[in-house]
């Protein structure tokens, strides 16, 4: 028996699945063990991701053959720098969100569905881990489906009719996306005979001249498929409703992680499976770039006119996913690193903002931005954390939002596209216009009408957002190790 760290990625996925399968039985027979089980699995996920990151950083990337079958025959997991980076992001934010959620969900969900919520949450995490590590297109499709269903389900679990409607809309659109992904996979399999990403990369240049249309169509369908799921600008229509209606921990995870995992899958497919010369002939990345610029501007502008705080945050997510795609579609070293860094940073800031909004809703019941005047006195720590998040969204130096925007701007300048820098600056200005009034009103606004009833905020909820706020500042001041790691990541990809 030799269990070394190479088994760890598959153990992560399998143990999360195992915990998810056990959860309904445990919840039915031994209710008090359900929450510790989910926390323990997520903690294991986080710790082993950390260990895996250290191991990969030290020993270099490695591959894992499931069932012992080498790539063209079996499924291969590729644990490279990108995969461990994603794993770490998902596990840490996921752990914090569920620790927070234990309190919030007891209050927001019916007792009998809480066990199912844990199950779905673990399934979502397992599928995201699977998408990060797999190196096989069809396997990725299967995991994408798991995460699509479970992401819809953690919205519809809340007892309100808006949730069902938002969830159905999300489900229909994301199934449309899955259909497109499957068709694109079929197109690639038809002309290459492989599903492994590495083999596709080898074979595609040879068949490119014989079947150009297949490649074109597959590119188009991949963009649409992953674009729908990641809420790239014109395909984002499901996002505001879904992220607004969901319970707060779900919103944090959906906005912070789930749309990012599809962006990462997009990166994997486009930069690892397709050879680079295809993008010289087919300007698909230019289109994605154009769409992401539109996304940044559109999301920021629409967020300004929202009244509901969660809806505002949701629209802001559309803008932020635009940054991620902006970085990827520029295809320069520093730009892709900036996009990846923004996945991590935005996961932290947006989860924190959603969780802070959750605390506000939990303790006061306020959802409208206008009613938040004077809230800074009542909930100083929450609003303080919110302020850190807002500053980071705007991109004030000293917060991590600044670092990723700076990287993206430098990456754009490397490739001689100063117009992108203008877009980033403009969007920061717009962010400032809608985040700052909330902060200013909360601390300096005149206390309005009748006194607010402030419920007690559970400590766990507060500590989790403070922890994230600390992370934002920490990675804003000391980003060097992360940047060095990402430098390695993009060197391996490009």
């Amino acid at each position, binding site marked *: 028996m030799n269990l070394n760290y190479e088994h760890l990625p598959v153990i992560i996925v399998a143990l999360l699945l195992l915990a998810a399968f056990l959860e309904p039985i445990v919840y039915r027979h031994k209710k008090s063990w359900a929450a510790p089980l989910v926390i323990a699995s997520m903690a294991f996920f986080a710790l082993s991701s950390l260990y895996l990151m250290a191991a990969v950083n030290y020993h270099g990337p490695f591959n894992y053959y499931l069932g012992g079958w080498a790539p063209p025959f079996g499924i291969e997991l590729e644990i490279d720098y990108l995969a461990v980076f994603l794993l770490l992001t998902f596990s840490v934010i996921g752990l914090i969100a569920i620790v927070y959620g234990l309190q919030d969900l007891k209050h927001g969900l019916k007792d009998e569905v809480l066990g199912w919520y844990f199950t779905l949450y673990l399934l979502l995490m397992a599928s995201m881990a699977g998408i990060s590590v797999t190196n096989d297109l069809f396997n990725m499709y*299967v995991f994408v489906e798991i995460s699509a*269903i479970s992401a819809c389900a953690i919205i519809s679990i809340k007892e309100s009719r808006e949730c069902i409607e938002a969830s*159905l809309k999300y489900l229909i659109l994301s199934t*449309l996306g*899955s*259909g497109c992904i*499957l*068709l694109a996979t079929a197109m690639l399999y038809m002309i290459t005979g492989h599903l492994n990403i590495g083999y596709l990369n080898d074979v595609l240049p040879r068949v490119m001249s014989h079947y150009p249309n297949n490649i074109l169509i597959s590119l188009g369908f991949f963009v649409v498929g992953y674009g729908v799921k990641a809420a790239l600008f014109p395909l984002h229509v499901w996002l505001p409703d879904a992220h607004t209606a969901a319970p707060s921990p779900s919103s944090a995870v959906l906005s912070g992680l789930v749309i990012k995992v599809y962006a990462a899958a997009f990166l994997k497919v486009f930069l690892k499976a397709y050879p680079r010369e295809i993008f010289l002939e087919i300007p698909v990345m230019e289109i994605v770039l154009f769409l992401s610029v539109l996304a940044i501007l559109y999301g920021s502008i629409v967020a300004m006119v929202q009244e509901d705080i969660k809806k505002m945050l949701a629209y802001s997510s559309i803008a932020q996913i635009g940054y991620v795609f902006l970085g990827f579609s520029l295809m320069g070293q520093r730009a892709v690193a900036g996009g990846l860094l923004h996945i991590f940073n935005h996961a932290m800031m947006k989860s924190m903002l959603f969780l802070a909004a959750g605390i506000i809703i939990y303790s006061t019941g306020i959802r409208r931005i206008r009613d938040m005047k004077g809230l800074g006195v009542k909930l100083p720590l929450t609003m303080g954390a919110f302020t850190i998040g807002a500053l980071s969204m705007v991109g004030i130096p000293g917060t991590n939002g600044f670092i990723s925007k700076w990287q993206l701007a430098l990456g754009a300048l490397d490739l001689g596209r100063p117009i992108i820098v203008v877009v980033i600056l403009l969007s920061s200005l717009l962010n400032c216009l809608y985040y700052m009034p909330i902060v200013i009103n909360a601390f300096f606004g005149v206390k309005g009408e009748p006194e607010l009833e402030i419920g007690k905020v559970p400590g766990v909820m507060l500590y989790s957002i403070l922890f994230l706020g600390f992370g934002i500042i920490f990675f804003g001041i000391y980003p060097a190790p992360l940047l060095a790691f990402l430098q390695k990541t993009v060197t391996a990809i490009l």
Partner: protein
Amino acid sequence: MIDIEVLSKLFNNYYYFAAIILFIIGFHTMLTHANLIKKIIGMNIMETAAFLIFVSIGYIEGGRAPILDEGFDQIYMNPLPQALILTGIVVAVSVTAYALSLIIKLYQHYGTVDADEIARIRSYKP
């Protein structure tokens, strides 16, 4: 523009051609019909089209089903697409089941399965 060569190619690839037509039909149903059940049916048609195109990749003229009890001198179909589509079908079934459960609940809340009607009810604020 359309020459005889292209037409004969289309005729030879009739499975793919049919799959494409199904895909367009499914897409159209999914996007234009307001009835949610019909949307789900369109979704299934679309996925079926993708399955059809995938599984017909594995077809070989004159091949047998890949049950390997007759020795290796036979021509067998490619088993990989069939195995993959088995997975795909189960995925489609799961999505359909969940979507139908959502529609049941939606019907209980709104009394209709028409998306436009639901939007109208939602925008109506007394």
